[in-house]
């Protein structure tokens, strides 16, 4: 039953999301709006085309903050996390379960943002680029979700903690932003980049996700423990 806990928590978070539809009704439109706002700020088509990869990942990161706050709002609302703790479960597994649920939501979000970039920023994706792009999305999303959930644990309980989340998460996910942006640029051939250059960055993303997966499982309990 021990492995079951991870999936049970992930399924619970996703079921809560399916009922409340916060991601689809609020976070997705927000991310789309961010993409439009980038176009307003950068103004020129060739600049947008060149920076499309980075803009997709910035929009994803901004959405991450909103999603993490939502993921922990459902824990505090009915003191669900306290109930789990009283049940004597391993918080490391709760962490993994919540990360998986967040990962799924972020991935769905990216699957919308990439076509938005194709339409708004006029980028092109071919078959080898698409393979690299999907692999990048999976690895980067894993890293983002693991870090977001880890520091999200700090925002549980106590007023005025929500504002702390971006300050803690942004420096940590900087490697993900850099690597995912470069890999996506390779996949989209922005600025004459080759697809082969992108795979080294995917390696970095995988190492990052593995490191924070292990560290997060160990550290999460200490961060949320009240």
């Amino acid at each position, binding site marked *: 039953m021990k492995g079951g806990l991870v999936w049970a928590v992930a399924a619970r978070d996703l079921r809560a999301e399916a009922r409340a539809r916060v991601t689809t009704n609020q976070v997705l439109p927000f991310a789309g709006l961010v993409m439009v706002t980038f176009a307003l700020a950068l103004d020129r088509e060739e600049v947008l085309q060149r920076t499309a990869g980075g803009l997709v990942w910035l929009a994803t990161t901004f959405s991450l903050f909103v999603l993490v706050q939502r993921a922990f709002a459902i824990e505090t609302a009915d003191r669900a996390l306290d109930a789990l703790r009283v049940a004597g479960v391993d918080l490391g597994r709760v962490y993994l379960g919540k990360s998986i649920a967040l990962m799924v939501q972020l991935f769905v979000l990216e699957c919308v943002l990439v076509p938005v970039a194709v339409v708004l920023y006029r980028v092109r994706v071919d078959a080898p680029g698409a393979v690299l792009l999907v692999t990048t999305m999976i690895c980067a999303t894993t890293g983002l979700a693991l870090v977001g959930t880890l520091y999200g644990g700090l925002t549980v309980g106590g007023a005025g903690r929500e504002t702390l989340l971006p300050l803690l998460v942004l420096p940590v996910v900087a490697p993900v932003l850099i690597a995912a942006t470069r890999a996506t640029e390779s996949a989209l051939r922005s600025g004459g980049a080759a697809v082969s250059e992108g795979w080294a960055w995917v390696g*970095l993303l995988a190492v990052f996700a593995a490191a924070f997966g292990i560290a997060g499982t160990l550290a999460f309990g200490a961060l949320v423990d009240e």
Partner: protein
Amino acid sequence: MRGTGTATTRGIGVVALACMAWVVWGGLVATPRDVVQGDAVRIMYVHVPSAWVAYLAFVVTAVASAGLLFGPRRSLGFDRVAGASAEVGVLFMGLTLVTGSLWGRITWGEFWQWDPRLTTTAFLFVTYLGYLAVRGLDGAPEQRARRAAVVALLAVLEIPLVHFSVVLWRSLHQRASVLDPGGDVKLDDLMLFTLFVGVVAFTCLYTWLVLHRSRLAALVEVAGRGELDRAIAARRAEAGA
């Protein structure tokens, strides 16, 4: 109530002051101008020691945090040292960034370059601002200490990853062209000696500040406890009267 000074801190303070006096005189007057950089090279006597102290401070924070989490005696003293060291480290890291960009403005004509070391240092600075913010969160003392220690150790995991990715990022896009620190500076003996005295001076200052700051944190805790007792006693006296 006793203060935070002892014979040790006074000794360290005197050494720090004496070394500082040497650095001021040596750095501004006695040492020669650099052939290439001119007087701008004098910033080095402040910049290099403050960068050294900043990194030292964060190593001390990490070690003290590990001591709190894994040590045989999980005393809150570790937490006070970790917090004091991080505060002083943030101060010196800010000083490093400011002196570095002043030097950059004179030498490169720009305050900032997206060089791997600069970028990593900026990220380290922000990371420890976050760490200090986490220390400010409420909770029981033991829990706050444990939480802060975990965040400090996560920062140790984060910084190499950030540095590695920034190095890779820059190397693929443009060769690190500008910053080759000390590469074209020929240091003569007096310059090296002044730099060394600067490092000693700043390390003494750091130690002095951390000792005082962590003792102050201990006194604040004691005072906080006493305050509660006094308030309870006052209410009881009111009820009795």
